[in-house]
């Protein structure tokens, strides 16, 4: 490192009376080259926070819809029912027992339970009123067949066997329901994905423009750094680091708020669970939880914001430098 020798040797051009306080005023910690607390920077942080919050809400809502849709679907598809009709000349109890045997003999079945006469009666009580003498009425009997999770029993074969051995029994595997559920769930997921894609696109575009706006005030800094001999990569790095932090901060505020909100909803939901209203809501909306994937998606969103911000600042720096060099 060269010293100031040639300058020292000559006469002081300036009244050097103050050299006693040589190092007194030099600041201890150098200021960042990109100013940290600018108004444009704060505005950008706010914009990113709000956009991240909205995008996170959309993401969470979509996760809930998708989760609920598949919950309904799996709830419905986890069991099938066999209905045994009373037919004159046949012993309904024997028919029920035979049907139970056939069901239990099928692979992939977890549990088979026949509704007792009493229970069956309770099912139709709302229509017929209580206090009837049930033994007098020909009440169909229900057998609920619960499937092993993930199993896909051969219902076609089971139906055939039933038809052959117990003609009074019919198998309802809810196929129509499931098909409709699946269609609904798929539609919900598709709409959700489309909305999410739009929201994300708008968010990233807005962050890009907001970053450009904030960068406009930094053009002079880019120029000066260039003039005093900084390399392009040095300049780009300064801005990229600054804007990455800025984006992370905004994203963390917005994403954090969304996570807190979802956490609160979940807590309230758990608290309400068991109350009649809560049960109904749970039946309709599923668990009200965005789940671990939802929270992960929000974290990814925060990082996405920060990266979009940092890359935009870098691109703006490079454009500024190109413009300077092109003249």
């Amino acid at each position, binding site marked *: 490192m060269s010293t100031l020798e040639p300058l020292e040797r000559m006469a002081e051009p300036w009244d050097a009376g103050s050299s006693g306080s040589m190092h007194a005023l*030099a600041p201890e910690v150098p200021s960042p080259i990109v100013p940290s607390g600018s108004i444009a920077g704060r505005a950008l942080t706010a914009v990113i926070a709000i956009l991240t919050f909205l995008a996170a809400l959309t993401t969470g809502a979509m996760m809930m819809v998708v989760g609920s849709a598949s919950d309904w679907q799996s709830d419905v598809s986890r069991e099938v029912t066999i209905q045994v009709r009373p037919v004159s000349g046949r012993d309904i109890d024997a028919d029920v027992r035979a049907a139970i045997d056939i069901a239990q003999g099928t692979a992939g079945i977890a549990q088979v339970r026949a509704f007792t006469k009493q229970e069956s009666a309770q099912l139709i009580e709302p229509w017929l009123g209580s206090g009837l003498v049930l033994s007098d009425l020909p009440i169909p009997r229900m057998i609920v067949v619960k499937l092993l999770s993930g199993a896909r029993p051969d219902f076609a074969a089971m139906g055939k066997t039933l038809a052959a051995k117990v003609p009074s029994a019919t198998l309802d595997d809810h196929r129509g329901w499931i098909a409709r559920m699946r269609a609904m769930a798929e539609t919900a997921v598709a709409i959700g994905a489309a909305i999410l894609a739009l929201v994300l696109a708008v968010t990233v575009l807005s962050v890009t423009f907001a970053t450009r706006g904030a960068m406009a005030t930094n053009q002079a800094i880019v120029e000066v750094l260039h003039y005093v001999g900084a390399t392009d990569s040095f300049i780009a790095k300064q801005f990229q680091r600054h804007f990455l932090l800025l984006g992370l901060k905004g994203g963390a505020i917005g994403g954090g708020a969304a996570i807190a909100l979802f956490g609160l909803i979940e807590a309230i939901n758990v608290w309400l669970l068991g109350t009649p209203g809560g049960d109904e809501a749970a039946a309709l909306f599923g668990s009200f939880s965005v789940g671990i994937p939802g929270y992960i998606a929000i974290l990814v969103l925060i990082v996405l914001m920060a990266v979009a911000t940092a890359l935009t600042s870098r691109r703006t720096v490079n454009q500024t430098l190109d413009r300077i060099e092109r003249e």
Partner: protein
Amino acid sequence: MIRFENVGLRYGLGPEILRDLSFSIDRHSFQFLTGPSGAGKTSLLRMMFLLLRPTRGLITMFDRDTATIDKDRRAALRRRIGIVFQDFRLLDHLTTYENVSLPLRVLGKDEASYRHEVVELLHWVGLGERMGALPPVLSGGEKQRAAIARAVIARPQLLLADEPTGNVDPNLGQRLLRLFIELYKSGTSVVIATHDIALMDEYDARRLVLHEGRLHVYD
């Protein structure tokens, strides 16, 4: 060190504001660049600093044709030149000390390695007491001296100064001129653009005079 051959410059589709410039700036030389306002002094300095490409002609710098070198080489050449802009171009959020040390800082040097040197230079230009001040609170003359200090801190081989006495009283102007002369004596080539006749009369040096787009050299 810098050689212009038949250089012409026009902005966009406008008229040619500089025509057929042929001259050179030698190693260890001192010269004034003068001419009326709007004559093209700033434009010429910008060409010398490689911020502006000539519309025609050849500029050779440190024995290289500046038209054919790439961006990185241009940046490297520029690092050997210090420039004082007419409007200073100090960064308002950095202290005087930080502004002056910027050329060393952007080279990735450790602050401890240049601290002493910067402090010494600041004292030398009379800003010893203003090291911690931000440019917005500096006077015009103080800004001028900070800009000059920044231009010379990295020990350039060539110093280009655009109206370095334009914002100060004659007394301060003379002191700044002495500063440039000392730099010249310590080995730096100096080009001072000015239209201050009184200043030029202070020191007998080569004059490059721009007049109606042409350059007249008075050695």
